[in-house]
């Protein structure tokens, strides 16, 4: 698809180079590598009055479960240094109402629609996917495996390679669309989980979800968020997310989609250079809803100035020979 590098290098430096920033992931073509992250963009419609949704590469909708869920009691969020904590509790309208009420709007867009799916048992996941299979206008599923498995004593799916493989394999069998798996960063070795998901049939991996954190009100000596612990997102987590994307991209063959604290095209390019085929914008949507569009434009401008297509950039990090151990 991309013009061969040699050819581009022959085009005189003065002529405008029009970079290809489209990307194919799990058989779906995205006009650009910038998606909005699950839980930070509602069901898309909420942002229609703010930005041109058709300029996005894709929209990943808020996590959907088989049955509606009401979520956690307030307070659910808290601001931290360059980040935020959230424990929304996966409030959502359920797969059936999503298909009936939310999907028609998304179907009307040129932008790709990815549906984030979760459950507390493997059967939950499968059931949600089966309902969603009937909806039209969904391009792929993204499995959120950062949930505690109620059967496995609350052990988090995504923190255990065996549970990961189980839920991915079952979901893959059920899914009539490509299956992305969204990894939890709260693990010792992200590549172990990544390989487990890949072996079990994941068509792409997205990472990272939020880091489990906490904040305390010292006046009342109670947790700031009713759930006690909550997920940390935002610029604060970017360095760790980037490291995990870098490691994962080197450990698997399926495409990797990078997430975590991305607020600018420069941030996004770091993930892409580290090996991400695409990126997702999360928390930044809350305070700067035009972030994703600015990132698209910034990536295009950077590629143009470097005379590179996106595919030349993905994973193009150069590691100096002096660099020894992967640990600081």
């Amino acid at each position, binding site marked *: 698809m991309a013009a061969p590098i040699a050819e581009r290098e022959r085009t005189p430096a003065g002529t405008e180079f029009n970079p290809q920033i489209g990307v194919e992931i799990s058989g779906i073509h995205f006009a650009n590598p910038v998606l909005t992250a699950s*839980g*930070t*963009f*509602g069901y898309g419609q*909420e*942002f229609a*009055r*703010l930005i041109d949704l058709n300029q996005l590469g894709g929209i990943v909708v*808020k996590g959907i479960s088989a049955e*509606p869920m*009401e*979520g956690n*009691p*307030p*307070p*659910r*969020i*808290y*601001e931290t*240094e*360059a*980040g*935020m904590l*959230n424990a*929304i509790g996966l*409030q959502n*309208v359920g797969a059936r109402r999503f298909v009936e009420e939310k999907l028609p709007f998304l179907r009307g867009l040129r932008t790709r629609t990815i549906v984030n799916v979760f459950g507390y048992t493997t059967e939950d996941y499968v059931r949600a996917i089966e309902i969603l299979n009937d909806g039209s206008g969904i391009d792929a599923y993204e499995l959120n495996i950062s949930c505690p498995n109620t059967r496995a004593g609350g052990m988090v799916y995504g923190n255990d390679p065996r549970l990961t493989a189980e839920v991915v394999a079952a979901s893959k069998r059920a899914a009539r669309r490509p299956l992305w798996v969204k990894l939890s960063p709260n693990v010792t070795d992200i590549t172990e989980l990544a390989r487990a998901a890949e072996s079990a049939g994941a068509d792409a991996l997205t990472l990272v979800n939020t880091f489990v954190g906490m904040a305390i009100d010292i006046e*009342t000596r109670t947790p700031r968020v*009713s759930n006690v612990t909550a997920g940390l997102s*935002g*610029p604060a987590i970017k360095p760790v997310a980037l490291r995990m994307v870098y490691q994962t991209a080197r450990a698997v063959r399926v495409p990797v989609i990078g997430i975590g604290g991305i*607020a600018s095209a420069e941030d996004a390019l770091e993930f892409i250079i580290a090996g991400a085929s695409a990126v997702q914008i999360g*928390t930044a*949507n*809350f*305070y*700067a*809803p*035009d972030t994703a569009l600015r990132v698209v434009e910034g990536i295009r401008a950077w590629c143009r100035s470097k005379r590179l297509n996106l595919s030349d950039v993905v994973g193009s990090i150069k590691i100096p020979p002096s660099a020894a151990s992967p640990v600081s």
Partner: protein
Amino acid sequence: MTRMYDEIVAVTENRPLTGGHFLLSLRAPRQAQATRPGQFAMVRLLGRSDVLLRRPMSVYDVSPTTRPPRAAGKRGANAHRQPEILQLLYKIVGRGTRLMAELRPGDSVGLAAPLGHGFFAEEYLEEARRADEVLLVTGGIGIAALLLPARELATAGIKSRLFFGGRTRADLVGVQDFESSVAGITLATEDGSKGHRGYVTEPLANYLERHRGRKFLLMVCGPWGMLRASAELAKRHGHACLVSMENRMGCGLGVCLGCSIRVEGTGHGAYERVCTEGPVFNAEHVIWAREEIPKI
């Protein structure tokens, strides 16, 4: 969904008032013209990531120019001009508001407004028309949500009265701005430095007691205790009551679900978003158990 605008706008004035309160004037014609009474804005401090999220602030006033609010009553010749300035009345309580206080004319902020449903969603306006008088009840910085409603009521020919409480007289900011719009003002301070000594819900209770038989609508914005006390008084006397709720907000846009509170008797599930279904709720629908209303 009404039109909403999210833009970088310029500060034209940031005036210190008493008690750590400030009046911030922003050149934001589109936001100012679209705002309905009781709606709010999300304000972003630019160029820093340590104070990441935008801060919710009621739209205090909109005006054609940046005249002092004292003069805002006598609009005269200007009244037909479209507002260009949007004003926020805020109090320093933490890092974000402390930084807001440092804004100077010429600085910029991000401004998304108007947001939420105000006091005059259709069913509420109907309610107001049926009332003999609307009682605007507020404590502390809650006053910021009530100036535009007071004006709207005056314009619609509906009588209103302000009950305004604070810890001390320095908290009673903006009272003058209400004078031309309301039929009466009752003040209260906890330290007795101005008006009734104690909570403003005490004179409110007396007023309701003295005017049994009349039909009131309460519009309340203030701390949780005051909201609940007002809601109870309204219920006891059989009056309708609208409360403007607060909660931490991640987005103000309806997507993070961070601001949800449990609300009864509505079709939209157990939790509703303060930023989208609120901030104004019918007090009858709010669950007043402490654990359902966050101590934020």
